[in-house]
């Protein structure tokens, strides 16, 4: 308005702000807390999401989700055209090497689908005819603990049951994988296309297509779309669509995208309400002062200047503080939490927990918006009050605290009546407080749930027993009865896992824990020293799986050695 003096207004704003240090501390604290909360919750969630994604990709040994076996060149070309498929790579398995798959993949499959699920990749994918790339796990089984690029390796390839040949290869690279072999089979030993061409003899190998779909397309959706868009070669050919890592990660964390959205809304709401509530409480205290200022000639614009200046200072300080605290939390505490919690045994995830400035900016932006909105609302409220109403606002306050100006006439009113009246009179504040409290509880509950749900240590414990002993009654003749996992009694009945057997196993050195599932299978857990013992100097045929191998050796000489070691 005409001829407004902004200087006095600013001075007023500053003096007002400084006059109540308690208020400025609480307001700044609320902003800082909200910024910190939003920033760390979203960083935590995204870190968790990323880590889960990485985890599931590493366990699968690929970041692709959908496969098509026995694909034709035409199908390959058609699929490449599809908008919802990001990458398509070719994969050919032509045999086995030491229990691993002998495979050839094209550039896309290696670059975009396979290698992102591995770590510590040394060297390059095989180019030359006699080049080979090994997973470290396989090299170790071959007794090579310190591989050198370029070293010569004699390798026996089993092309089929009938055809087995040995070649000498040059190691062009090696990598570390974390494939969960019990679910996804053994890892790949990679060869060059040139080698495959040379040994093919005109044989046509089955091509498997690895497809990486858009993150938001679910496994079922992608299957449906693919069946619609691509003609199948025959009725046996099928697409196998899996959910993307993103979806799996979201699912394991909160149960789905919709819950994720809801949780986000709840978190934002609680941060917003915190700011609103704190500002509202302090605003109410100042209505009378605003009323006086208005009486003395403070216009809307001037009041805006006062309030917004104060809000800006609060936001600036609070945001800086919140950024500092949140940044520290995210940079120092979260990595510790996340890596301890879920990357146990699945490789490092140091790169996953990053400081995301975008989240910080968004958190600050959100909190600022809410704070300014609340300020604008309080100004509007003041402006709609006449000075007398503003002055009387405090009287209601007084009534609330019992120093009533309008005390009920006659002494006969009861406490609960007053309580009810007050609750009704302050229903907005009451409601907001109630909602705020509920949300606060919800969020803290969510945090507890998240940090517990996130702790997959238990899952790892149960899924990754080091060894199990299977007693298959139908094949009693086939299994080595001397193992003692079951016993034919005199009356012809069979006792599975007799007590002596279990005791014997539990008494073995290195057995930390064991459990028996009757009717199903028994599981034995060993620590790594015990395993190393069995694996030592052992060349291991690919068709023998871990547990069988370890079990077979249980009663052997190596155990005696183990005992001696102790």
């Amino acid at each position, binding site marked *: 308005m005409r001829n*407004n*003096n902004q200087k006095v207004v600013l001075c*007023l704003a500053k*003096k007002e702000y400084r006059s109540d240090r308690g208020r400025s501390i609480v307001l700044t604290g609320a902003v800082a807390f909200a910024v910190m909360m939003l920033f760390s919750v979203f960083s935590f969630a995204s870190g968790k999401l990323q880590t889960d994604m990485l985890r599931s990709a590493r366990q699968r040994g690929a970041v692709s989700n959908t496969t098509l076996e026995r694909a034709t060149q035409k199908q390959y070309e058609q699929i490449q055209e599809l908008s919802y498929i990001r990458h398509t790579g070719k994969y050919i398995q032509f045999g086995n090497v030491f229990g691993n798959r002998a495979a050839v993949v094209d550039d896309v499959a290696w670059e975009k689908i396979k290698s992102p699920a591995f770590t510590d990749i040394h060297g390059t994918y095989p180019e030359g005819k006699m080049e080979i790339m090994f997973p470290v796990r396989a090299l170790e089984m071959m007794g090579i603990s310190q591989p050198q690029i370029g070293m010569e390796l004699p390798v026996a390839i089993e092309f089929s049951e009938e055809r087995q040949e040995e070649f000498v290869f040059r190691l062009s690279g090696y990598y570390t994988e974390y494939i969960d072999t019990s679910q996804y089979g053994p890892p790949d030993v990679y060869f060059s296309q040139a080698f495959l061409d040379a040994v093919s003899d005109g044989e046509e190998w089955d091509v498997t297509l690895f497809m990486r779909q858009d993150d938001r397309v679910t496994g079922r959706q992608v299957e449906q779309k693919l069946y619609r868009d691509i003609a199948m070669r025959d009725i046996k050919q099928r697409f196998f669509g899996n959910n993307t890592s993103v979806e799996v990660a979201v699912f394991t964390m909160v149960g789905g995208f919709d819950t994720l959205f809801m949780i986000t809304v709840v978190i934002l709401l609680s941060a917003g309400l915190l700011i609103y509530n704190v500002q509202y409480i302090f605003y109410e205290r100042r209505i009378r002062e605003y009323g006086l200022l208005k009486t003395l*000639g403070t216009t809307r614009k001037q009041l805006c200047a006062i309030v917004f200046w104060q809000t800006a200072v609060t936001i600036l300080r609070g945001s800086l503080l919140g950024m500092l605290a949140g940044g520290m939390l995210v940079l120092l505490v979260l990595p510790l939490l996340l890596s301890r919690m879920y990357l146990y045994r699945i490789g490092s995830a140091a790169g996953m927990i990053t400081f995301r400035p975008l989240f910080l900016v968004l958190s600050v932006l959100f909190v600022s918006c809410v704070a300014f909105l609340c300020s604008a609302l309080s100004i509007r409220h003041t*402006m709609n009050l006449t000075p007398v109403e503003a002055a009387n606002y405090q009287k209601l306050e007084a009534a609330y605290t019992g120093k009533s100006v*309008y005390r009920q006439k006659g002494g006969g009113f009861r406490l609960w009546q007053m309580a009810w009246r007050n609750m009704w009179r302050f229903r907005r504040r009451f409601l907001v407080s109630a909602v705020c409290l509920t949300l606060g509880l919800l969020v803290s509950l969510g945090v507890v749930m998240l940090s517990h749900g996130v702790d997959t240590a238990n899952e790892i414990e149960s899924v990754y027993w080091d060894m199990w002993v299977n007693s298959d009654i139908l094949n009693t003749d086939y299994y080595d009865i001397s193992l003692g996992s079951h016993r034919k009694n005199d009356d012809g009945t069979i006792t599975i896992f007799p007590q002596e057997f279990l005791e014997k196993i539990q008494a073995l050195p290195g057995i930390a824990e064991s459990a028996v599932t009757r009717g199903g299978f028994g599981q034995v857990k060993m620590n790594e020293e015990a395993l190393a013992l069995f694996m030592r100097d052992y060349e291991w045929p690919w068709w023998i799986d871990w547990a069988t191998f370890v079990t077979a050796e249980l009663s052997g000489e190596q155990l005696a050695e183990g005992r001696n070691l102790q």
Partner: protein
Amino acid sequence: MKVLETRNVRKIYHTPSGEVHALDGVSISVEDGQFVAIIGSSGSGKTTLLNMLGGLDNPTDGVVFVRGEDIGRLKVDELTVFRRRNIGFVFQNYNLVPVLNVYENIMLPLQLDGRGPDERFFEQIIDTLKLREKLDSMPHMLSGGQQQRVAIARALSAKPAVILADEPTGNLDSVTGMEVVGLLKSSASLLHQTIVVVTHNEEIAQMTDHIIRIEDGKVRGGKDEE
């Protein structure tokens, strides 16, 4: 010329114990340059009437004119600016902005309007109101009477056409009270201001040009003029 005029103003407050008719059809007018007293018993509606005259509250019914302007028709900010240029207030209580010192409080309406003070007039005011020692003090350090004197200084310093004072001498001893009223009166004649004071003090009432007596929200008699 009528500087202040109300026509059939009504104010009804709705309280939990029923309706309160604080003003019940009040029609008064105050001439330019007059010094007017409003008297009446406690709760009779004096403050309410003063608030209506200053545009601090909306009447339930009726119109209020200040210097010929129907203030009920002004928008919020127009009324605010109109008020700070034309009306000075002294309230019964809660007069001062707590975060500003005495000097700043006195200067606030002028500064909000972007005007500078009239130094000589200012000096005269603070001497008469005995505020020189207190210019740097904060309101909470002042006694009730001192606070009231600051409020009077503030109302005078902007040289408004109208001063509305609600028991300005309520917290003052009778000597100071008379001095303050003297100041108001001389300022009024000097600057040709119109002054309305609410008072319980008969002596002060007798010093005025005109007395408006209020009883139960209604104007009584009106024949008390001297």
